[in-house]
């Protein structure tokens, strides 16, 4: 059946089984491969996207559940990679292999929306679901604080990126 929702600001209609996880609809049907598969059971966070502005694990979110909603993926977080978090990630050279990093950034972006000045504990509880086998956690914390500081000082890019209109 046809399911219509917004992806990174553009309306999309997919003719797929409504039980299909959003993850595979994004990756295999829409070719948005920035959102990653890691566990398929809400245990690693690699598939984190925003649904109506909130962090969701797309591996356990059915396409049918996002009908009429706004989905933002890493590709739509900012028009040009200029989100404060993306810039902080580059500044602190956070990624190693990089595979989990879209999920880390999407979880962090949702956290900053809710808590513009998060503590380490806030970061730990919001990003607890996001596994990183390479071990970038120390830099993830640093970069989130750094992005939060920049946003507080009125940086050029808002936490709400281009896709979250």
């Amino acid at each position: 059946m046809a399911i219509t929702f917004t992806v990174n600001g553009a309306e999309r209609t997919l003719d797929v089984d409504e039980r299909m996880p959003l993850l595979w609809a994004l990756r295999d049907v829409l070719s948005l491969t920035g959102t990653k598969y890691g566990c398929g059971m809400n245990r690693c966070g690699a598939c984190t996207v925003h649904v109506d502005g909130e962090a969701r694990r797309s591996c356990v979110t059915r396409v049918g559940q996002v009908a009429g909603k706004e989905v933002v993926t890493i590709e739509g977080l900012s028009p040009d990679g200029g989100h404060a978090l993306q810039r902080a990630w580059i500044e602190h050279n956070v990624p190693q292999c990089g595979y989990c990093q879209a999920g880390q950034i999407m979880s962090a972006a949702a956290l900053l929306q809710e808590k513009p000045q998060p503590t380490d504990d806030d970061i730990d509880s919001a990003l607890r679901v996001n596994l990183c086998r390479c071990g970038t956690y120390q830099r993830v914390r640093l970069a989130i604080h750094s992005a939060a500081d920049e946003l507080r000082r009125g940086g050029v890019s808002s936490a709400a990126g281009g896709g979250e209109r």
Partner: protein
Amino acid sequence: MSRQDTVRKVSRRAFLQVSGASAAGLVLGFRPTALVSPAMAATGAAPAFAPSVFVEIATDGAIRLYVHRSEMGQGARTAMAQLLAEELEVTLGQVEIVQADGDKKYGDQNTDGSRSVRQNFVPLRQAGAAAREMLVASAAARWGVGAGECRAQDGVVHHQASGRKLSYGEVAADAAKLEVPSEPKLKPESEWRLVGKPLGLVDVPDIVQGKAIYGTDVMLPGMLFATIERSPTVAGKVKSFDPAPALAVRGVKKVLQLEPIPAQLKTLGGVAVVADNTWAAFEGRDALEIEWDRGDASENSEQFRQQLETLVNGDGKVFRQEGDYAAAKGSAAKSLSATYHGPHLAHAPMEPLAAVALVQDGKCEVWAPIQDPQSARGRVAAVLGLPEEAVTMHVTLLGGGFGRKSKPDFILEAAQIAKSMEGTPIKLTWTREDEIRHGYYRGQNAQHVEATLDAGGKVTGWRHHTAFPTIASTFAPGVKDPQGFELGMGLHNLPYRIPSIQLESSGIASDLRIGWLRSVCNTFHAHAIQCFTDELAEAAGKDPVQFQLELLGEPRKLDFSGHDKPYGFDTGRLSKVIEAAAEMAEWGKPLPQGMGHGFAAHFSFLSYVAMAMKASVEEGQIRVHEVHCAIDCGAYVNPDTIEAQMEGAVVFGLSYALHGEITVDGGVVKQGNFHDYPLLRIDEMPVVHVKLFPANGNPPAGVGEPGVPPVSAALANALYKATGKRYRDLPLQKQISA
């Protein structure tokens, strides 16, 4: 080689739009030979100048650096580009970094053993320098001036006196006519702009935008998606199955049986389901009803442990003997013994295994996250019955590797499916459960260590018996004994100055596939040695750091096999990192009640690492608070990468020290995903401080692996200080909870 054969990435201008599936579109850096359109073929200009397989300047002026080692987060692509660009006199922003296909012309491409920088530190600079000398000579000839009057900078040759300049692209065709200098002059270290500098990894801008392409992200027109239900046992095969329920699932196109290939790294058999999306393939697979012949499979973890204990408490094969341990024991004032145990471990890279294969017209083209693309190419050719030249092996980014992606079993599976569907690209995706259950495991092991002390607390004898299933069993069936290369990882080279040393080993057969996992046998050898050193220090009534420094004694150069020249094992360098880590950590300073300070050090992959770790137990949970780490890896290319690798090593080491355990019953792995094979999470992350030693004239050594081995021992030693109990089994959280 055709330009279309390259997998290219990084430089946005070189990207090609391949997938037409969506307006949002996946921007791909891949050019499948078989699928290349005229428009695509026009994009990459032919090389005008290619003085080596690593450097190429195109007719349109594009500068390409070929990186021939795989990137799995360890920074190989960046470090190798730094080495080439340093001598070529270009900035990293000016170049297109091309990931080389698997091809013998690049020399060794096997990305394991922490060797990428070590083996290429000089050759890649020479490749860059040779190209630069030829470009400068060509420009000088054009101007009729001496090459010595010209200098190269940022891709341009300048004639200082006249102010004239020519870009590399403008002189590339002339340079191509010159002979490649055999001994180009390398820049002195004092003039390095890139080597030794902390640069961000070249792939980070793509990664943070979701544009980086891993094996699982390759999309080709007309591609179908596959998954495989594999035999639950390594020796098993399909007895019978009914494809009908799977074929009834919407989107499923084909169901086929795969025979096991024992000769190819024990590649498993099973039933593949091919569909028009990954989820449909998973659904089809779930619907399959398969009857298995499990073959010879009886391994049980508890029994395996008992067998190991029996082995190490008896006599093994002696592989190093100095002095007379029995005599030392007979005359000892005091003796001590302990047995340490570690379980099987799985790799769990965040990207589960995935590969894309296309078979058509007697050729096979593969895109895969592979650590060893040349061996993968040869094995695909063997399985498909093709000459090696008919197989193209493109290397994508690896979403973690840790040794698992050195085994191309998943590529062989994709190639088999693609062969049955000629002309259709097939993407094979492993689920997390597949990855955890069908690995090449770090083997379950036991270490029995005993030592003798004289009346003054001086160690007079050390006996160590190690037992584990050998990696060689995966390559050659029936091999059971630990191999020299395995014993050489952290045990044979025991550096302590002790009069009597007796080292023994025993083998044990496992039903599982055994492989190398980051740091390999160093993980358990370092754990036992460093925990036992802590126990011995206490028995001798000494501080463990001081005690270890005394055991190492005056600096010596040890020369064991495996320490390839110009390397050796300089015990003085190990002592220095121990002193540095202790100083950073303010070792000996009292800690808050309930917190323990543990210490460990280890030499591996030719580097020296020491670590101090603060830990406590709070409400039954182990908390690691702070880690101080010192590393001496000799000369280095990117200090920020080294710091990142030490942070990552702490996380990797803590994951298995706290939680990592694969258990087996009836030859079948019991765990399947992150709920029962947990990895360290951000709320368990300690603060990590790293001190990197200057080169001090030493050649570059390993970085990706040497940080891991001290971690578990430092933690176990810290827990002893915190709780007063010795925990000799891993994983530790389970021991605390028991």
